[in-house]
């Protein structure tokens, strides 16, 4: 079939053609950009915490007793909670991975007069030796803490020289250039420069801030809880429901000491979800707009196709009378719609990229790969061909006699 009659027919209905092309161009531009944003966001929230998110609870406690002794109370908590049915491990910690707030400091690979060597930011965990059991930390090299290695921060105020630390493999790579570093010495914090010996290197060991550029740089110092009204416990349970675990832990905590408030006790995945709530709401909105856009334009295009076919009944009849087969008529409509989409793509791809530039100049967004508008264009092409098929087939059924009758 020749392309010329198709183009001719498009030219004869300039307003319809223009409208459809503008719609398709805008649709390609919008959807391509939305899909680009979605995949960008997905990357940033798709974090493998390395934790059994359903089986770990985060407990935040606030103590208001005047004579509060953190270690006495918390060590008793660990002991009694561990005896509860279904509770397999309990740790005191100052923060949880990806929870949004916590502490960080800089670490050095060596101490030199002229301040050379590398200095790297890392999240600082102060937790007892149970932390790895609760979080399920996997050690790539070395080991975790032994109970007798856990220090009392109230006695020393800081770390003792030569004490062991567990660090994340990402931190090892950034600070020392490799992660097989058990036995090496690092210096922390940078203002005091206490030498610490690496005893273990952990995989998937996130700091508390998901959007931090070095979110996988972590150091774990083996510490008992410091005297502070705020305390945090990480609990792992198994074989019971989360609700049961929360219930029995809360009861036990108040039984141990009622001069405190269990500020929150929740499953780890809730903490993570909270960090990404804005991302989730954005993804929902973008997804909704895409779904609506596709429904509106495809239903609209079908509607216009139906009108188009009805209006051209006589033309189709004439063509049929002059020898066009049913297949020719269907092809005519398919070609028209296809040609329109090809034109839309030729315009739509640059428009999509232009829109992306515009958005990039206003907001911190990544640049859009040309693959996105192209694939959206092809998807639209496919969609419109399927959409036009049914009106076109019914159009092809117009008997040639209709044409001759009313003329």
């Amino acid at each position, binding site marked *: 079939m020749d392309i010329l009659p198709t183009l001719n027919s498009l030219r004869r209905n300039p*307003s319809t053609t223009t409208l459809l092309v503008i719609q398709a161009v805008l649709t390609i531009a*919008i959807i391509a950009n939305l899909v680009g944003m979605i995949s960008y966001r997905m990357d940033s929230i798709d974090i493998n915490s390395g934790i059994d998110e359903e089986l770990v609870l985060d407990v935040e406690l606030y103590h208001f007793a005047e004579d509060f002794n953190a270690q006495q109370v918390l060590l008793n908590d660990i002991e009694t909670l561990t005896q509860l049915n279904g509770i397999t491990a309990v740790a005191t910690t100052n923060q949880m991975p990806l929870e949004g707030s916590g502490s960080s400091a800089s670490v050095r690979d060596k101490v030199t007069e002229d301040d050379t060597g590398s200095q790297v930011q890392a999240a600082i965990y102060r937790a007892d030796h149970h932390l790895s059991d609760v979080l399920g930390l996997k050690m790539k090299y070395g080991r975790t803490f032994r109970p007798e290695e856990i220090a009392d921060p109230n006695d020393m105020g800081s770390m003792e020289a030569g004490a062991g630390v567990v660090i994340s493999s990402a931190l090892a790579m950034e600070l020392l250039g490799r992660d097989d570093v058990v036995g090496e010495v690092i210096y922390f914090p940078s203002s005091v420069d206490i030498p610490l010996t690496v005893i273990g290197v952990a995989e998937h060991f996130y700091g508390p801030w998901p959007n931090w550029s070095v979110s996988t740089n972590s150091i774990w110092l083996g510490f008992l809880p410091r005297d502070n009204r705020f305390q945090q416990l990480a609990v792992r349970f198994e074989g019971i429901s989360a609700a049961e675990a929360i219930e029995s832990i809360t009861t036990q905590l108040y039984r141990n000491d009622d001069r405190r408030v269990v500020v929150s006790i929740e499953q780890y995945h809730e903490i993570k979800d909270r960090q990404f709530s804005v991302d989730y709401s*954005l993804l929902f909105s973008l997804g909704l707009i895409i779904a609506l*856009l596709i429904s*509106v334009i495809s*239903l609209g295009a079908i*509607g216009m196709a139906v009108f188009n076919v009805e209006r051209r009944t006589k033309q189709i009849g004439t063509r049929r009378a002059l020898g066009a087969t049913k297949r020719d008529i269907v092809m005519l409509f398919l070609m028209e719609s296809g040609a329109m989409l090809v034109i839309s793509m030729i315009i739509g791809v640059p428009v999509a990229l232009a829109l992306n530039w515009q958005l990039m100049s206003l907001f911190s967004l990544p640049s859009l790969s040309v693959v996105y508008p192209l694939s959206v264009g092809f998807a639209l092409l496919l969609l419109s061909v399927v959409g036009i098929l049914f009106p076109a087939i019914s159009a092809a059924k117009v008997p040639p006699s209709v044409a001759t009758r009313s003329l």
Partner: protein
Amino acid sequence: MIGHYIDLAWRSIKRTPFISLLMVLAISAGVGMTVTMFSIYQHITANPAEKMDNQPFTLQLQSNSVGSGWGNGMLRQITYQDAIAVRNSGLDATTVAMFKSRFAIKSDAPAASPIFGSVRVTDGTFFDVFEVPFIAGSTWAADADRDGDYVAVITQSRAQLFFGSDDPLGRMLFLDNKPYRVIGIIEDYNPQPKFYDLNNNPFSLGAGIYIPMGLAPLEEISSSGNTNGWTPSRIEDYQALLTSELHWLQFWVSFDSQQERVEFERWLSAYIGDQQTAGRFPNPEASFALQTPAQWIKYMDVHSEESDILLIISILFLLVCIMNTIGLLLGKFLKAAPAVGTRRALGASQGQIFLQHIVEVSLIGLAGGLIGLVFATGVLHVLNGYLAVGFAGDEFPLTQLHWTMWLYSPAIALLSSVIAGLIPAWRICRMPPSLYLKIQ
């Protein structure tokens, strides 16, 4: 005449129920999405202090070194020692120094168990400066700001929570086991964004309990907000925090006259000079800044890109919906051209035909606008559900569909549909009647 057009329009709409529904839904989706995103945008860019005539001002004092600090080279809060010095200056300007903290709070009822909640430690001028109305009682005396007094002003909803329907005035609240006498009940005060303290989450709710600033050194109350430093400082005890160079207080000031402001600024300049002489304020160009709530909201850059992007995208989406409607209207009107030809032949003018079609698209637009409102309410509900996860417990202020949307939504819908209808209505009224009469 309009009644007749509406009747004709309704008949025409009924003649093509599917296409009409499609147009209504397209308009409602476009308008609904735009209205939703506009509501969120409004919520985020609002200036809750708009009615306060550019008062009060937040004070930034440049006690930090060159190179530290934000856009204007200053930190976002001020030190305790500076806050107290400015407050005790004896100037006529009304000042508020404050920070937020958290306590275990319970009522004096027997067997009450404590909850954990936020408390604002502030000067008693807070309620006057931010125009927070009292329902009962009043704020504390000025000397409580300096010497401390175990009293509290609480919000209506906190009063309800702790004391139910009883009169809360004179009752006791226990903060970390210490009794505080309730001396005032205020209306709930939750400006969005929380412009008087934009640290941490600017869209969280305000504290429900307010206690005098003078208690801070007595009770060694620590801040649960941000504490910023610009120089290494060792904080051994609470006294060290009070005399440190750490920035952790919010400070606001309001002036009754230009004269007050001039005197205040003159005093500040002299204070900065004194501090430089005393070896503080390392920046030789050290200065101060006073910013109105609107300027402060902008400075703290609270509004998120996401809302801007979504607003732009939803407007583009509305544009596609309008295009779509134009196409459908064109098809529909042209199909009914023979009937129009007959009406023209029977004496209807071009203007009348045009008006009749505009009435028809207006009906469709209005229906779309109303459904769009329902749609927007639903989408906002879902989005609030997502966003509420980001807040702890009950501290999430919902984004409501602003009441103006009940006007905007139908207006945008009407405008969109009329714009969509212009070309098709114009085309159809210009049709020569003879063309269609001939065929019939």
